[in-house]
């Protein structure tokens, strides 16, 4: 009997380890040889811990499970009160286009043979058979853009790095995932780490790099453990090392753990951090593509950008490009979080409206109260009111609303949210996390908190000051930390003026 129990952080936080232990104990008690496979998560967080059993070639789900629910699994699974039926048939699964996350929650993340049996390594094999320039052009043609936030075309970045000669080039994977409401990088690394390794190896082949780094945040202990183990197994199996899969590609990856600084997700700050320096932002130019890690040409890409490359190589650029809308091609793993009934990871082609996401997919708020606002794109993303929920999920579509999709985190708030408090938090966060290099960000954020406190005390004259301050931070900051803090602040002010005015009445 094969029983699948997630090792994913969210599942573990909700009790998956205790459920796995109960499965082992019950199997032992009954003398049944049970193989427990720890997997990633399917992304249906409200059903975690979600346990699966293989039955007639299908995976039957049970959840959310407690240790007390375990014994009945061994009686008649079909009659189990927590039975959900075949997992693939659940509406949440059926509505998705799972490409990057196809294997997450399905396979044993640390089994290379499982990985290969589910299509793994086909992209890399094809890349190794192609001319490196053809690999770059395949990624360009796919329309893949950076999933870390800025949305820069991945293939174009690779072309730049491929085009310069250097004694050493690097592939750096940005796994700092600091945005609130995001966990796609974590889920991918915990659930399918070989996919990231494969994507990085393809990148190395394409641009002529021989060394890679994964900069993974310290807040993700499970991902750190899984990825460290995956690296060791990849080396053992010849997926990394002097001759990748027996080819002439020499490539290895080192895992670096961050130290709790949000700004280190910014690519130049991240490079400084790997170099062992303070994580301050570097002025651009030079672009990291030309002078990056230790001054060498460097590809810096988000986890999801890199993990989307294997399927592009495997199935071809056209297949990927045909999904999506406008200049947003392919799929995007939406991360639905905050006050929602059904939260988790939902991979779909670009183009869903916020209304579909929040109401149909997420089922509205967990509290049952009306939705007041949704913050898309992390702490630097705008707060959008329900009147804007028809916006289609895409880079340009959000930019047109003075908003951004960022890393595709979607945080839902009900009507108890105080948008002045949210604006204040945005400034406070910027003040705490500023690297300190530029004044508009370092000082501006502190002034921002003070100015919002004045507004809260009923000083309406401080509102224009806040706008001016946001303009200064936006125009004068070295990076998007100071530059984009205006998005949450001004969107809160513009869309929810009552929350800034009501305070004045209260004070009078």
């Amino acid at each position, binding site marked *: 009997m094969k029983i699948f129990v997630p090792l994913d*952080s*969210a599942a*573990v*936080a*909700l009790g998956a380890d205790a459920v796995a232990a109960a499965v082992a104990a019950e199997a032992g008690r009954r003398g049944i040889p049970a193989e427990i496979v720890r997997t990633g998560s399917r992304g249906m*967080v*409200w059903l*975690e811990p979600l346990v699966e059993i293989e039955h007639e070639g299908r995976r039957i789900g049970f959840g959310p499970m407690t240790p007390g629910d375990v014994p009945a699994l061994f009686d008649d699974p079909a009659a189990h009160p927590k039975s959900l039926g075949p997992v693939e048939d659940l509406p949440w699964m059926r509505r998705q286009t799972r490409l990057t996350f196809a294997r997450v929650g399905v396979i044993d993340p640390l089994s290379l043979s499982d990985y290969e049996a589910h299509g793994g390594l086909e992209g890399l094999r094809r890349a190794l058979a192609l001319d490196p320039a053809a690999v770059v052009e395949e990624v360009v043609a796919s329309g893949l853009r950076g999933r870390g936030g800025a949305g820069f075309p991945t293939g174009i970045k690779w072309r730049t790095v491929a085009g310069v000669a250097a004694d050493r080039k690097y592939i750096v994977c940005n796994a700092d*995932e*600091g*945005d*609130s*409401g*995001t*966990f796609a990088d974590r*889920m991918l690394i915990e659930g399918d780490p070989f996919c990231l390794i494969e994507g990085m190896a393809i990148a190395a082949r394409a641009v002529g790099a021989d060394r890679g780094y994964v900069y993974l945040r*310290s*807040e*993700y*202990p*499970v991902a750190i453990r899984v990825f460290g183990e995956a690296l060791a197994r990849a080396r053992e199996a010849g997926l990394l090392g002097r001759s990748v899969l027996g080819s002439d590609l020499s490539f290895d990856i*080192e895992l*670096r*753990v*961050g*130290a*709790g*600084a*949000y700004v280190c997700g910014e690519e130049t700050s991240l490079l400084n*951090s*790997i*170099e*062992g*320096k*303070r*994580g*301050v932002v570097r002025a651009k130019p030079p672009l990291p593509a030309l002078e990056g890690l*230790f001054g060498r040409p460097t590809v810096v890409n988000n986890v999801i950008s890199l993990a989307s490359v294997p399927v592009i190589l495997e199935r071809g650029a056209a297949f990927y490009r045909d999904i999506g809308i406008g200049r947003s091609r392919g799929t995007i793993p939406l*991360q*639905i*979080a*905050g*006050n*929602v009934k059904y*939260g*988790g990871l939902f991979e779909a082609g670009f183009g869903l409206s916020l209304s579909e996401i929040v109401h149909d997919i997420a089922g509205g708020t*967990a509290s049952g109260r009306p939705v007041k606002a949704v*913050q898309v794109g992390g*702490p630097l993303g705008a707060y959008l009111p329900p009147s804007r929920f028809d916006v289609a999920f895409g880079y340009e579509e959000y930019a047109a609303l003075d908003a951004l999709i960022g890393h595709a*985190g979607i*945080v*839902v*708030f*009900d009507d108890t*949210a105080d948008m002045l408090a*949210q604006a204040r*938090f945005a400034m406070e*966060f910027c003040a705490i*996390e500023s*690297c300190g290099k530029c004044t508009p960000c370092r000082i501006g954020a502190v002034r921002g908190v003070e100015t919002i406190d004045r507004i809260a005390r009923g000083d309406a004259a401080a509102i224009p000051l806040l706008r001016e301050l946001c303009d200064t931070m936006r125009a004068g900051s070295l990076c998007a930390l100071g530059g984009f803090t205006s998005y949450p602040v001004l969107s809160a002010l513009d869309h929810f003026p009552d929350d800034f005015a009501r305070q004045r009445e209260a004070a009078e």
Partner: protein
Amino acid sequence: MNAQATPPGLADRVREIVADYADLEGPLLPILHEVQAAFGHVPQAALPVIAEALNLTRAEVFGVMTFYHDFRSEPAGRHVLKLCRAEACQASGGDAVAAAVRARLGVDWHGTTRDGAVTLEPVFCLGLCACGPAGMFDGRLLARLDPAAAEALLTEAGA
């Protein structure tokens, strides 16, 4: 034991750690992590040892150490409770949990209770945003916290 007293054998242990990582490119962060893992914090006395071994100034090492929120210059309490303060956890009631915990422990963020039982640290996202409010207690991940669950956790830990 006085918190700032230099643990015996510190310099030797730090030199060993530095040697373990000497082959890395840019080894300072891994070294600081390892020193903190060994001593529970990064003791002042470790900085000149690291600096000398890596051919850096003491000010450079100090500057790096103080830049990152993870590295502490003082030992923590016997337990460390991290509570997520970021937006998704705010949306699901995180502020109320934090307020209850701060009142219960009588400390603010970064504070340690007088008896040294618990240090309270803020964290900005643990990637548990679809099952918040989230936290971490001595490395154990926590989801769907509420004031009562936090209270029970602290009581169990003897705080």
